């Protein structure tokens, strides 16, 4: 599969002079308009964005700015109405069929009739992996999110934070190079969230995956990201793209540092300027 994706990448280099072999997501002039009874809603308008291999990109913005929609377009869960997008050099649909990404939803979305191990096994069963391969991946990924020993528990027996970790293990078990996360820690309290943020960073450092992460928490975005995309609503568009110069190795203490606060300040300014509550 990786060989196939690689071949597709080089093909894309021939077609697009701008495309680099490390480019994971390439979005150009992308728009998405929902037709509703009250007229068209411009969820996304004229989005240009490039995401490189190994990036940790956060989408931040107020509700209704289209950040989740953008992530869903990348995942082929929504269809853009204009513009172009490639994921690993191919269309989102093809990328999805290649199982190029793992998606973590706002809610854990664990199936209640499956144990934690069986939930992690779900995508692996669909992919048609052998039993031993499944066992091996379940054990490895549950260990990665510190859930070893909870294999036989049902989702309702776990706390919200543990459920969300199980859903991350499920996304990781697919072994994608790209991780799409839609406010995965939004429903959790501050302390659990900090802990999971740290774990996620370690995971990202260990596996060199590309992550696209939706949030509306400024500290979370700044703490996690190498690149922060600030979106604003009506129509949903990119207001600012901030390249973070924080070191890749970070601990929670970094949030007290002046560099961190400077980036956070710029994000806050962007959110304020892009906001239309005043008018």
């Amino acid at each position, binding site marked *: 599969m990786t060989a196939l994706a690689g071949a597709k990448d080089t093909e894309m280099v021939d077609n697009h002079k701008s495309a680099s072999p490390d480019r994971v997501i390439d979005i150009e002039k992308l728009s998405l308009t929902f037709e509703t009874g009250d007229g068209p809603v411009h969820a996304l308008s004229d989005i240009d964005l490039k995401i490189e291999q190994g990036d940790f990109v956060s989408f931040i913005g107020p509700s209704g700015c289209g950040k989740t929609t953008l992530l869903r377009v990348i*995942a*082929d*869960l929504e269809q853009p109405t204009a513009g172009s997008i490639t994921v690993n050099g191919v269309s989102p649909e093809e990328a*999805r*069929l290649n*199982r190029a*990404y*793992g*998606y973590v*939803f*706002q*809610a854990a*979305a664990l*199936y*209640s*009739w*499956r*144990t934690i191990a069986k939930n992690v096994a*779900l*995508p692996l*069963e*669909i*992919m048609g992996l052998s039993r031993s391969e499944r066992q091996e991946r379940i054990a490895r990924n549950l260990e990665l999110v510190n859930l070893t020993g909870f294999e036989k528990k*049902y989702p*309702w027996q776990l706390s919200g934070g543990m459920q969300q970790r199980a859903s991350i293990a499920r996304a990781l078990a*697919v072994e994608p190079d790209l991780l799409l996360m839609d406010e995965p820690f939004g429903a959790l309290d501050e302390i659990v969230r900090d802990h999971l943020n740290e774990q996620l960073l370690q995971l990202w450092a260990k596996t060199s995956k590309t992550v696209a992460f939706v949030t509306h928490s400024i500290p979370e975005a700044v703490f996690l990201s190498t690149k922060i995309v600030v979106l604003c609503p009506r129509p949903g568009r990119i207001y600012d793209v901030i390249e973070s110069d924080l070191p890749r190795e970070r601990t929670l203490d970094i949030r007290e540092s002046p560099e961190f606060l400077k980036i956070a300040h710029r994000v806050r300014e962007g959110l304020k300027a892009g906001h239309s509550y005043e008018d």
Partner: protein
Amino acid sequence: MTSTALTPSRSLNPFTGLLSGTTGPVIVVVIAIIGAWYIGAVALNTPFQLDTYERADRTNVPFSELVSDTLAQERPVLPAPHQIAIEIWQTTAEKKITSKRSLIYHSGITLSSTLLGFLIGTTLGILLAIGIIHSRVLEKSLMPWIIASQTIPILAIAPMIIVVLNAVGISGLLPKAMISTYLSFFPVAVGMVKGLRSPEVIDMDLMHTYSATRVQTLWKLRLPYAVPFLFTSMKIGMAASLVGAIVGELPTGAVAGLGARLLSGSYYGQTLQIWSALIMAAFLAGSLVALIGLVEKLALKRMGMTR
């Protein structure tokens, strides 16, 4: 609960304990029904009894004798509960199962076509539901017919089915089972359409991100989701199946089955026979529904859906 301060002090009223659980109230209701039944039996059977006295030229019969006579008629308008109980006892425990007069023999006949019809009906209902949720054309074309099928009175269509099937050489168990099928597929089909469509958007999206096929989505998401719906509709379908089997025995002049007992009972004014068959049918339906409830409990427990 653990705190002794929270335990209510023992009341002097002897009925407090009786009414606090679930058995207590149930027993009270049963006693009330049986009481009302006896009063009704005496009232309804009195005119015939008075006629009898008149023909025998008996006057001034004491009230206590009148009451005991109304509760001991051979063909009462409304039999008393103990008469039915005796009749059931005589036709079950005191008869050989193979005897034509054994209620268990007749129940067995009805039960077999109920179960066969229920099995076919449930399978048909599930298959229809799977077709309907996957194809808009099937939904548009089948759904009106499915609903229309249930608006036709079963008493009108049952003889047709039996006669038509007899004409093509199918007789015995299957025609009766077809009527059970006719009644039981509907709740299962409707319940399963709802159940198979009940997964949350997020659960469906998850399957989409895995590029799961329709069969995989059906098997790993929709069907597990529909299991509680299936059991609920199977309970309704089972009760409907039994009604169908009994109705199926009426128009054919069947010689065996609870329906046949009801029919011959009404021909000869054997109210005791009718009532005992009715009670047996109710008992059968109750047991079958309870059995499904038990399987449901076990299945949901196995699926980790009960806490």
